[in-house]
């Protein structure tokens, strides 16, 4: 048997798509076929609704989906995080129960990691999971939970041993979000959006065997989820429903609209460098030598950041060892966003005091100014990034820790 190659896979999926894809079927019917055939997640194991193909083949397979205009599996955003974590750590019973419904989109998921008392210090979680002899009982609060308000299941990190050191007393669970002990409330941000939720657990219940990995080994499992959080999603995306006619497309559009809603302001959060030159020319700030210097600084930072990412990607593509350029993007992005916000203020002048319809571009400028502060916090603060860069890239010694020993003795937020 010859090594599987892209051409064989492309040939095979082309024939399969020809026989099965049709935009007039319902999304659930289509995705049922994707799950049955393994073409929705071709890189998953055969046993778990995939075809066991190497990840490198996905682009070639995706090209075939795009060629016929086929929609991909539902595994986007939190569903991807759930699936990679369950595939790597969960029992067969859990995999059996959930993986297929991730592909079909029947279940929505959310991540339940951050807490009001532990943000950067994720391992300091104090949400508790106590075993009452038959099931787990959950009490505590999580925060910054995207999609929790329409999720069916959550990925929960909770403390199961208070006498162990902090990283060794956590366990990782799947929790049913649709039960009386779980209350989901929107969290309104300073920019007016409510893209996240707060989740309160009051004697919420989890079946005994819905633990992912082993008891008190939740930190290692959480690391798998986190490793995929900032990585671009791996899979067969196919086409979106945008601008196409057919039942499956229409349903995909609705699904995407719900999924993308929390991220509407993310471009503004990154600073909208793309608007700067046009805006400066329009307002006349383009002729101000002081503003021009700041614009030039911004463009230099922004383009260099982009080129740095391309250097990292190019090195990876040809199999070179990862250089420092691959670890700096997040911190660089914060600097770009801050400088962009500064430049937008210079360009906008007095109108920077206005918001909504009175702010330029129907409020986009105001939204930039009040969204940029999130960039240097979300997904790892600049300070944590600098620690990581200093310690893992530059090899500087770690800070002496003051949180060793039993977790219950460590000072924490009250």
């Amino acid at each position, binding site marked *: 048997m010859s090594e599987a190659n892209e051409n064989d896979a492309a040939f095979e999926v082309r024939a399969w798509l020809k026989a099965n894809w049709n935009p007039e079927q319902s999304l659930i019917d289509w995705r049922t076929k994707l799950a049955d055939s393994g073409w929705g997640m071709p890189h998953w194991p055969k046993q778990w609704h995939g075809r066991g193909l190497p990840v490198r083949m996905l682009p070639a397979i995706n090209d075939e989906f795009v060629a016929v205009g086929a929609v991909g599996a539902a595994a986007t955003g939190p569903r991807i995080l759930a699936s990679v974590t369950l595939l790597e750590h969960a029992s067969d019973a859990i995999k059996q129960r959930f993986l297929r419904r991730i592909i079909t989109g029947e279940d929505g998921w959310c991540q339940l990691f951050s807490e009001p008392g532990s943000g950067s210090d994720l391992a300091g979680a104090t949400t508790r999971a106590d075993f009452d002899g038959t099931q787990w009982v959950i009490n505590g609060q999580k925060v910054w939970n995207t999609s929790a308000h329409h999720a069916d299941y959550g990925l929960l990190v909770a403390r199961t041993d208070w006498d162990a050191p902090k990283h060794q007393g956590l366990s990782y669970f799947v929790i049913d979000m649709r039960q009386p002990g779980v209350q989901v409330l929107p969290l309104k941000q300073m920019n007016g959006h409510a893209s996240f939720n707060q989740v309160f657990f009051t004697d919420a219940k989890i079946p005994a065997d819905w633990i992912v990995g082993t008891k008190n080994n939740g930190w290692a499992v959480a690391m798998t989820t986190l490793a995929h959080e900032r990585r671009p999603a791996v899979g067969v995306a196919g086409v979106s429903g945008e601008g196409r006619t057919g039942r499956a497309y229409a349903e995909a559009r609705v699904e995407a609209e719900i999924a993308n809603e929390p991220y509407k302001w993310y471009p503004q959060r990154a600073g909208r460098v793309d608007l700067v*030159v046009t805006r400066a020319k329009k307002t006349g700030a383009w002729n101000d*030598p002081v503003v*021009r*210097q700041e*614009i*030039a*600084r911004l*463009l*230099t*930072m922004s*383009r*260099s*950041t982009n*080129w*740095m990412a*391309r*250097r990292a*990607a*190019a*090195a990876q*593509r*040809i199999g*070179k060892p990862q250089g*420092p*350029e691959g670890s*700096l993007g997040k*911190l*660089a992005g914060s*600097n770009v966003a801050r400088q962009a916000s500064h430049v937008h203020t210079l360009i906008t002048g007095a109108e920077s005091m206005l918001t909504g319809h009175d702010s330029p571009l129907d409020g986009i400028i105001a939204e930039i100014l009040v969204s940029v502060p999130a960039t240097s916090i979300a997904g790892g603060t600049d*300070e944590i*990034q*600098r*620690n990581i*860069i*200093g*310690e893992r*890239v*530059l*090899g*500087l*010694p*770690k*800070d*002496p820790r003051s949180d060793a020993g039993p977790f219950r003795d460590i000072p924490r937020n009250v």
Partner: protein
Amino acid sequence: MEYAFTDEQDQFRDVVRRFLGDRSPTTEVRRLMDTAEGYDAAVWQQLADDLALTGIHIPETYGGAGFGPVELCIAMEEQGRALLCAPYFSSCVLAAGAILHAAEDDQKANLLPAIASGQTRAALAVTEPNGRWSTSGIQALATRTGNGWVIDGEKSYVIDGCSAQQLIVVARTAGSTGDAGLSFFTVDPDATGVTRTALATMDATRKQAKVVFSRAPAELLGQPGAGAEPLSRTLDLAAIALANEMVGGAQALLDSAVAYANIRVQFGRAIGSFQAIKHKCADMLLDVELAKSAAYYAAQAAAEGDPQTPGLAAMAKAAAADAYMRTAANTIQIHGGIGFTWDNDTHLWFKRAKSSEVLFGDPTYHRELMLQRLEA
């Protein structure tokens, strides 16, 4: 656009780095910076004969190795890292660049092989005591005589101007202004009417001279009055090369700062374990890597003949200058008191950073150029 160096380019870098590590330790830098000529003749010859660096980007037709701006910039980056004392930038980048961009084919065939082989060390004289970097600062006059040209005027900040065996001079015809009326000339520095004086440079590793021309005989290089365009291209390549030299120097400083932060103990801990120092080092790394990205991108653009090269050159120069200067200041800061001493090597790079920051225009000047060129 290529974003990764090829295996061959990586090997080339390794060879250059090993050579310079061996032949340009800071003991040698310190020895040479105290000499008038500022370079070691034997090392220069090896640079030419063993590594073919002196003609790396000069076409094979003219006696060079036939590589391009990317390889030239690798050579520059490694020299910046090692702070090599040699007339490389002056002769191989500036003078050779001027000849490549301005001269007629027969003149190139006549002049370039000797520069490519390292036999002739040439220098480019553009800037004048007014210190203006644009063509408006060029006031030296070129006058046609019966059988050639003579130059009158004063050039300054001429890199390796005293030790050069050949001068390439930019001068203008009487009555012209700005970009008009500029021409390139070759001048024999030993001819009557040429007076060279060494300048006391803050960066002793890079020598500079003032050169006074008084009816100095000159030979026209290229077309009369058409010098502005080749000058601009010469300075763009120089800016890109200098940017790469600067990021090499900045990396050397960062390495030394991190090494020191790992071994220096205060309050019972290595100072690198304090976030005040650790975070500073992380920011320095980001600074250096961003400047490298701009410098590499500009070199690649020049190699590919990208029409945006002039704007990218200005961006790379500004970014590298700022990053180098900040890295130098932070490296002294991390070293604390010892970083301010003469015996510590940091000041050698600090002074190169300061000098390079200003040379051919400071970052403010280059940012304005960049905006005019990229976002007109």
